[in-house]
């Protein structure tokens, strides 16, 4: 899940001056991605080609695309900025907040997705429960994808305006048209190719920062000493008791002893279970990548390969956030103090939290390397747009248009519809990007929408795969009530009762938390925005479980004959016993989990 990014208006000057070498590197990237789109058009003639890349990807390509979809620039900029604010706690988004769910997807859920040959996650709901659940999840997913694509566009345009002084409209239109053209031409295949390209760009564009940063601080311990010395000046509002920016678990016994106001229960049940499993196993944007694999072992191994890279992402995201606390200084040598994006000082030229990565790029990278870093940021944003747009085209065509509007058209017609949808999705996303200009906290809102639409989806899908008793009515009601409960909590924490009868209607302000209401959700009035969303995810998840299980007991389940290849006990899952140990998904899944446990202990 992406951390919030908030952008203020640029201070009217660029942070970084680029040379012709840097510009050449940026232009080369645009030329190549358009060229790839043109080249791949000849390979995307059928629906299977366009929407699922022909189901022919190897484990490595599917795995890198799977993880790359998640590794956009909102991720790199967002989490490096959050680490600067809250320290190592943000690493929980990676190790507890991703790895167990990725292994679960690979070993438990992927066989069902793959064997039932669904085109999409809503498509599984159709096969398992019928049209109602598919319709609800499909429409909410369409809304989420175009919104997230618009957010990517807006975020990229603001970052480019801030660090390079580029015009906002220029960035939005150039990036969106490029993405629209290459997705329209090559469909998911084009999106996957560009995601693999982006994967290499992000790693090689940012990896030099932690390497050089640790050389400058003379290693990890030198960095920690500098952070401890700088924290009182950088975060004067954080009490000495809560100023532990290095521990992951050691400071989590009490919400008052860490900079984020987090409690271990919120991390384990909110981030580690509700959000993580919801996102990694049911967000079609990521699952679509591994559904494109050529066979089940490739899909499973690809997922686990992605998991290993996900486990390493903190190197280029969390570590730079920590290094920024240690090495960024003002011209007089004092520690540089970055401020929140909505701080009035930003308008006066102060750097915000979101400038962590650009400032480190500027600190260490000369001509050429700077262009590579900026291209990595652009590629990350564009890849995020492309992923959402290709998923939008698939879900619209297969889960809304085909079943509800035009059931009997030819395959060629659906491909044409998919191509048109890619451009339509881009146009709607551009509208969403411009709408973002009207809202100050649009990124925090997007994070919440994700909790609202994706967390409730996990329950009917996983119960549908593992429990034959789960009924269509229960799945639909669980999903619907989960969404409504999350929406209700969101309104509740941002609502201040008025003076009138029963305190209604009062004031609703998405930029303001009513701390007395937050206390009911999180048990503490001081909980910050990210942990509040995490707690909301916990309650949304529990509500969906209770409703889905409860309604299942009082409604009629589908007969076993209709559950073939959809549910545990009615599905013949191919054995991998004939494969050598080193090719078995189960073996690598447990290796991944074991390494993750060891890393958590080392950085406790």
């Amino acid at each position, binding site marked *: 899940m992406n951390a919030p990014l908030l952008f203020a208006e640029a201070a009217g000057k660029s942070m970084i001056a680029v040379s012709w070498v840097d510009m050449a*590197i940026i232009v080369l990237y645009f030329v*190549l991605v358009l060229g790839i789109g043109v080249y791949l058009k000849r*390979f995307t003639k059928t629906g299977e080609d366009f929407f699922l890349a*022909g189901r022919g990807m190897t484990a490595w390509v599917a795995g890198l695309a799977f993880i790359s979809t998640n590794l956009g620039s909102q991720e790199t900029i967002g989490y490096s900025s959050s680490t600067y604010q809250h320290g190592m706690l943000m690493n929980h988004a990676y190790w507890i907040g991703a790895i167990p769910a990725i292994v679960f997807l690979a070993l438990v859920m992927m066989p069902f997705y793959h064997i039932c040959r669904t085109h999409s996650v809503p498509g599984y709901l159709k096969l398992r429960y019928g049209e109602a659940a598919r319709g609800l999840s499909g429409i909410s997913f369409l809304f989420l994808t175009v919104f997230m694509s618009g957010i990517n566009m807006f975020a990229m345009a603001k970052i480019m305006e801030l660090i390079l002084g580029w015009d906002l409209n220029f960035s939005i239109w150039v990036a969106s048209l490029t993405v629209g053209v290459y997705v329209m031409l090559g469909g998911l295949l084009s999106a996957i190719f560009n995601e693999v390209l982006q994967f290499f760009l992000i790693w*090689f564009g940012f990896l030099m920062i932690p390497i050089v940063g640790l050389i400058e601080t003379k290693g990890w311990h030198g960095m920690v000493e500098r952070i401890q010395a700088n924290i009182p000046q950088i975060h004067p509002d954080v009490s000495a008791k809560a100023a532990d920016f290095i521990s992951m678990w050691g400071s989590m016994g009490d919400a008052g002893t860490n900079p984020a106001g987090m409690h271990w229960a919120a991390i384990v049940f909110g981030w580690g279970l509700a959000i993580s499993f919801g996102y990694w196993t049911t967000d079609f944007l990521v699952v679509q990548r591994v559904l494109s694999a050529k066979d089940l072992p490739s899909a499973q191994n690809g997922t686990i390969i992605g998991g290993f890279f996900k486990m390493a992402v903190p190197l280029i995201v969390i570590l730079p956030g920590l290094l920024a606390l240690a090495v960024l200084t003002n011209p007089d040598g004092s520690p540089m103090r970055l401020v929140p994006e909505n701080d009035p000082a930003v308008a006066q030229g102060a750097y915000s939290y979101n400038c962590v990565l650009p400032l480190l790029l500027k600190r260490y990278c*000369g*001509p*050429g*390397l700077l262009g590579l870093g900026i291209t990595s940021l652009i590629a990350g944003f564009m890849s995020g747009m492309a992923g959402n747009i290709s998923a939008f085209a698939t879900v619209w065509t297969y889960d809304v248009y085909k079943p509800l509007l035009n059931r009997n058209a030819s395959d060629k017609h659906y491909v044409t519809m998919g191509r048109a949808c890619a451009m339509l999705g881009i146009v709607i996303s551009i509208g969403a990007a411009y709408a973002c200009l009207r809202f100050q906290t649009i990124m925090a809102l997007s994070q919440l929408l994700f909790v609202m639409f994706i967390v409730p989806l996990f329950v009917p899908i996983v119960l549908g795969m593992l429990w034959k008793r789960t009924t269509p009515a229960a799945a639909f009601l669980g999903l619907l009530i989960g969404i409504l409960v999350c929406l209700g909590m969101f309104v509740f924490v941002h609502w201040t009762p008025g003076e009138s009868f029963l305190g209604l209607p009062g004031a609703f302000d998405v930029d303001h938390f009513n701390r007395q209401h937050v206390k009911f959700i999180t048990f503490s009035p001081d909980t910050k925005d990210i942990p509040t969303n995490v707690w909301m995810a916990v309650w949304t998840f529990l509500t969906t479980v209770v409703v889905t299980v409860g309604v299942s007991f009082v409604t009629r389940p589908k007969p076993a004959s209709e559950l073939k290849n959809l549910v545990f006990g009615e599905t013949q899952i191919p054995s991998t016993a004939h494969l050598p140990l080193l090719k078995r998904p189960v073996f690598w899944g447990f290796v991944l989990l074991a390494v993750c446990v060891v890393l958590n202990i080392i950085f406790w």
Partner: protein
Amino acid sequence: MSDKPQHTITIWFFVGVLFVAYGVLILGAGIYGLFVPPDVEMKELHLSLWWGALLLGIGAFYTVRFRPRRE
């Protein structure tokens, strides 16, 4: 559709070509930086020089290893 057998050009080849181009540009900038040092911290490491060489090496390997072949 497989990413290898049916596509005469694989994604790995595209990665290789891009990295060769980037490697040449960044290595060139690094060599220039030996004479006109850039205004950055840790410039004594000559980051552009060895990072450009690394990209060029990886790019060359991928370009040659996954070059299009006649089927």
